[in-house]
């Protein structure tokens, strides 16, 4: 709902992404704050935020596949893994500069995702989700069973630092800036995709496949497209992970990781790009807080021990996912929009 007294006079004003002056101010202030933070934050905080940015990119991709096109994807971590391996391979073997590696990794993952989306020609619903589980199972197997001088086998591949001219992006601040810039580009792109022709086709397929088909949408191709886009985002996120960790192996891209990405999308709110970012920040934030205070907590209560803290984290986050699905199925973004409209209707809330 728009604030009172706001009317669009042109079509382009009506579909604009940033529609009001306060929105523009908030956007600019947020960007400035994020930029300033790069020079104010401690290295630890910067690295946490970097990991939130990469998770947000991957979650936004999942948002496109699952939230907009309605295709459950349990292989997002595998797609990210493909991107990470592609990054390691290109950067290590061919010294390709990072600004080429990142999009190439995205396309590598997108190609991988597209293959599984192509299965959509014959499959629908949760059967399609099962093929993504197969992707998740195939991914480590293929890597671990290829000759180890190809992709490093179980020990993984090291990634050389990204360089821009003579500038080596190795410090936490450099990585933060890189993730920030890539993140902004990717999020802006996501808004463009979901508002365009493809995005509307995604929504139509999500809401009713049969009806979408009858209105002339090529359902299978749309689904494959949704996987392509979602996996592209995962690949880009995987590339950033590779540059951040400087070591790629299969253990960072498990089924459990995929489930975490789904958790982010659910907590943020399905079908909202901002929801993907909010969800990634919320889940990663809680994970970071728990793993930071965990050792202190374990020290205070030696009876419980370290594994208890880890277990409590799982119970808490698993409980959060289930609770959101039952009580707040549209995620945090719905709460936010309710708050907004209540504020605007004040003094007549509801």
């Amino acid at each position, binding site marked *: 709902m728009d604030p009172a007294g706001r009317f669009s006079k042109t079509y382009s004003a009506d579909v604009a992404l940033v529609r009001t002056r306060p929105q523009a101010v908030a956007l600019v202030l947020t960007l400035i704050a994020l930029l300033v933070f790069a020079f104010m934050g401690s290295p630890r905080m910067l690295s946490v935020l970097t990991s939130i940015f990469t998770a947000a990119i991957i979650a936004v991709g999942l948002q496109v596949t699952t939230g907009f096109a309605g295709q459950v994807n349990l292989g997002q971590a595998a797609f990210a893994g493909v991107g990470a391996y592609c990054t390691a391979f290109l950067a290590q073997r061919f010294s390709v500069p990072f600004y080429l590696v990142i999009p190439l990794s995205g396309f590598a993952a997108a190609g991988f995702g597209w293959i599984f989306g192509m299965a959509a020609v014959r499959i629908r619903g949760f*059967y399609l*989700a*099962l093929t993504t589980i197969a992707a998740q199972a195939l991914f480590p197997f293929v890597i671990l069973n290829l000759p180890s001088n190809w992709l490093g086998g179980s020990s993984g591949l090291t990634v050389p630092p990204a360089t821009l001219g003579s500038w080596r992006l190795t410090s936490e601040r450099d990585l933060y800036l890189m993730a920030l810039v890539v993140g902004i580009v990717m999020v802006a792109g996501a808004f463009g995709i979901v508002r365009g022709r493809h995005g509307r086709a995604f929504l139509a397929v999500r809401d009713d496949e049969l009806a979408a088909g009858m209105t002339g949408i090529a359902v299978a191709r749309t689904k494959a497209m949704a996987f392509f886009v979602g996996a592209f985002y995962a690949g880009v996120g995987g590339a950033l992970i590779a540059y951040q960790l400087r070591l790629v192996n299969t253990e960072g891209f498990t089924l459990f990781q995929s489930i975490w990405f789904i958790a982010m999308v659910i907590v943020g709110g399905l079908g909202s790009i901002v929801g993907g970012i909010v969800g990634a920040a919320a889940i990663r934030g809680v994970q970071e807080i728990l793993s930071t205070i965990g050792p202190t907590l374990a020290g205070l209560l030696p009876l419980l021990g370290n594994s208890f803290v880890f*277990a409590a984290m*799982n*119970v808490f986050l698993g409980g959060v996912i289930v609770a959101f*699905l039952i009580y707040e199925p549209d995620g945090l973004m719905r709460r936010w929009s309710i708050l907004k409209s209540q504020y605007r209707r004040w003094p007549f809330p509801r």
Partner: protein
Amino acid sequence: MIDFLNYAVLGILTGQLYAIVAMGFVVIYRASRVFNFAQGELIVLGGFIVWTFVMVFKLHPVIGALLSILAGALVGILIERLFFRRLVGRSVFAMVMVTIGMIILLRGVMLILWGAHERQFPAIFPLEPVIIGEIFIPSPLLASGFLSVVAALALHHFFNRSRAGLALSAVSEDHEVAQSMGISVRKSMALAWALGVSLSIVGAMTYLSGKTLTYNAAEIGFAALPIALLAGLESIRGLLLGGAIIGLIQGLTSAYIDPIFGGQASAIVPYLFMLGVLLIRPTGMFGWKIIERV
């Protein structure tokens, strides 16, 4: 030749073991259209429940096993009460996502209750193998073959002949229609989950008997997926055949292809097979064909 027979028999019987696990999927799917992704965690939970009864309370394995199955039914009812009761009539998507949340939740609860270290699982079935001619068959596998046939026939009878079983099928078609026909959706779902978790406990016993119990056992949940899909998610007797086919393929792959390949191709073959089945015939061998009307 005798080697080949040995591998084939072992493979088919291992397939029956997976078939029992897959029955947990199918029972819940047939009753609520919910694809329970947390099946693997339920197997681990079943393992811990049996371990607690037999190793901590020192019960006789048979009594412990029976009590565990009962406890499994209670867990199933609890899951329905806590989660799915509140989701009656909501989208399938939400319900399936809840099972995904359950994976993380159950893992955490089990870590709190039982800790992370691995333990020796009691030998529910005798350790010495059964020898027929020159074929060696480990007893747990033989038991799994026997149990899967018994369970499949019993469940088939239940779903196709009994009033409660037919009600479950109606619920899976449409919650609201079933409700309006006087079927209690909640009771049916509770029954389905009770059955499903009890089956997981049987699966856990046969799978883990005499082995070590770790959280990795959850992988069997996803390993059983190809069988459920090959059979067609609604068919219970089809699981026997599906288990036999996939078990045979997997057994022969691990015997003849793994040594050449130097890897664990046998772990991946079921998934490749599953992809093939999905692409050629998504409803599996005996699944229901659903005609969509607008």
